[in-house]
């Protein structure tokens, strides 16, 4: 037992060497507003930079960052291309960029806020290493006699930025330590299909290179497709079994290949992306239902389908359909109720990704049998 504790302590000390907050210089980009409600992105950026600085990180001064934006004519803060990631590293000596988005923002009661951040290293290929979301709702912890109800975004904003900064500080780039955790049954997809032959082949080879395309969505929900896609990026990355490409790099490739997807990608479009990005998998889908509030306060709902195409084999290897409500299977006193639509999105996407990840993590013996079956049909 003592040996185990000593070994764990040593491992912990060894792993923190690779990612020490004091040494990490970060460019904190202004968040992208995906709410359509004119959220104060600059104040949120400053709060995020303050939270990171409090944990020993060194955020790049704003003036220096704006100089860089001006020199390179950068307007889109939703992603970063390979070229920009390399240039910002060389010119400002940052280790990486923190890209964020405001996924939910409501100023009237009940107030809501959701922030998603991701870390992209300022290195060739713009590798994406960490991503997390912090979503809060004024009534998430009402407590006895409603004493826990928050009536101000001035409390929710720092709560979200502090959580993200804590998560980032705890993350270890060297080991990619980010855990999916256990998925509750209510968040598992209603129906799904995974190709065991693909899983067997993928487990034997290098980690598949994956891109997530924006989900097709009805015009009424505006940015719901982007929000669902970003949660897919987050949870696919968290599996640790896949190399997920930075959405900014994907966007640049989509523009270069002139891919316009009206109903998801076609095989020639997937081939074009593969030629540019050396991909293995393309994940896309459609958001069929999205409501931030639902019919009663605090009852959001979401429905989406997802599909992964294995480009070398030119076939769909995974598809799933998920639907959930914030008030599904709520226990006594509202226990397990989900108030935030972004938390619900995150949990449902985590459940969908788990079906793919579970197939990749099935015992080798089962995979061996599947591979054999694929080789000798």
């Amino acid at each position: 037992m003592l040996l185990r504790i000593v070994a764990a302590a040593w491992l912990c000390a060894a792993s923190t060497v690779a990612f020490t907050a004091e040494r990490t210089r970060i460019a904190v980009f202004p968040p992208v507003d995906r709410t359509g409600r004119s959220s104060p992105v600059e104040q949120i950026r400053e709060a995020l930079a303050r939270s990171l600085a409090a944990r020993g990180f060194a955020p790049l001064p704003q003036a220096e960052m704006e100089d860089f934006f001006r020199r390179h004519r950068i307007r889109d803060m939703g992603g970063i291309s390979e070229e920009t990631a390399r240039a910002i590293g060389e010119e400002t000596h940052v280790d990486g960029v923190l890209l964020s988005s405001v996924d939910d923002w409501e100023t009237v009661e009940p107030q809501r806020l959701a922030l998603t951040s991701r870390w992209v290293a300022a290195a060739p290929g713009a590798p994406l290493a960490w991503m997390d979301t912090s979503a809060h709702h004024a009534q998430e912890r009402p407590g006895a006699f409603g004493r826990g109800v928050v009536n101000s975004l001035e409390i929710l904003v720092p709560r979200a930025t502090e959580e993200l900064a804590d998560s980032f500080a705890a993350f270890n780039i060297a080991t990619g330590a980010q855990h999916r955790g256990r998925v509750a049954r209510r968040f598992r997809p209603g129906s799904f299909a995974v190709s065991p032959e693909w899983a067997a082949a993928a487990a034997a080879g290098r980690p598949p290179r994956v891109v997530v395309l924006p989900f097709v969505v009805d015009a009424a929900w505006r940015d719901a497709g982007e929000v669902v896609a970003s949660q897919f990026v987050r949870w696919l990355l968290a599996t640790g079994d896949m190399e997920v490409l930075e959405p900014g790099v994907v966007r640049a490739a989509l523009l270069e290949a002139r891919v316009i997807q009206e109903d998801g990608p076609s095989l020639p479009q997937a081939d074009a992306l593969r030629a540019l990005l050396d991909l293995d998998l393309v994940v896309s889908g459609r958001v069929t239902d999205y409501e931030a509030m639902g019919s009663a306060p605090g009852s959001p709902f979401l429905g989406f389908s997802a599909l992964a195409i294995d480009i070398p084999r030119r076939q769909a290897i995974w598809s799933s359909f998920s639907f959930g409500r914030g008030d599904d299977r709520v226990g006594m006193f509202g226990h397990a109720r989900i108030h935030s639509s972004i938390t619900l999105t995150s949990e449902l996407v985590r459940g969908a990704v788990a079906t793919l990840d579970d197939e990749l993590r099935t015992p080798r013996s089962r995979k061996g049998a599947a591979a054999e079956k694929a080789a000798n049909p």
Partner: protein
Amino acid sequence: MKRLAVLGIATLAMIALAPACAGRRSAEVTYRDPKMDFSLVQKVAVLPFENLTSANTAAERVRDVFMTMMQATGSSYVIPAGEVARGVDRASVAHPTTPTAEDVVNLGKLIGVDAVITGVVREYGEVRTGSSTAGVVSVSLQMMETQTGKVIWSASATRGGVDAADRLFGGGGRPMDQVTGDAVRDLLNRLFG
């Protein structure tokens, strides 16, 4: 006297339950081409469904659920929706929800599928009876083989609605996604059963 009372109560119960039972939809008919060997249908394209309901995205929702559940059966490979859209565009299908036999043959050649499935969503949403509300979905599907464009399978299913328990005890019925899943499962059972 006692027998009369029991008879009276039983009659009243039957009267009360009769319309409630009528709320449940019975299984609908299925057409299956007896000359067709369905094991030859390895690759399928599901075309956009026709929407006859007031819910704008009902057809997309039902189609998504159907495609996923059909893929999950492992019996046929369902080609991705983007690939279907490319085929429809290249084959210049004027009405993708109601293709002609010629359109089906052309699509088969272009995207390499053995069969094409079309569908109509006739009902999708909540029905209200008295104080009870429940989700209901009604779908009809057709499968056409791409050699000749002939219909080889056709079926329809209706699931959900207010049942006896909902009427007696009030409350809502099952959620729409579960009702949709039930209807699709029923159709797939009849296709592969």
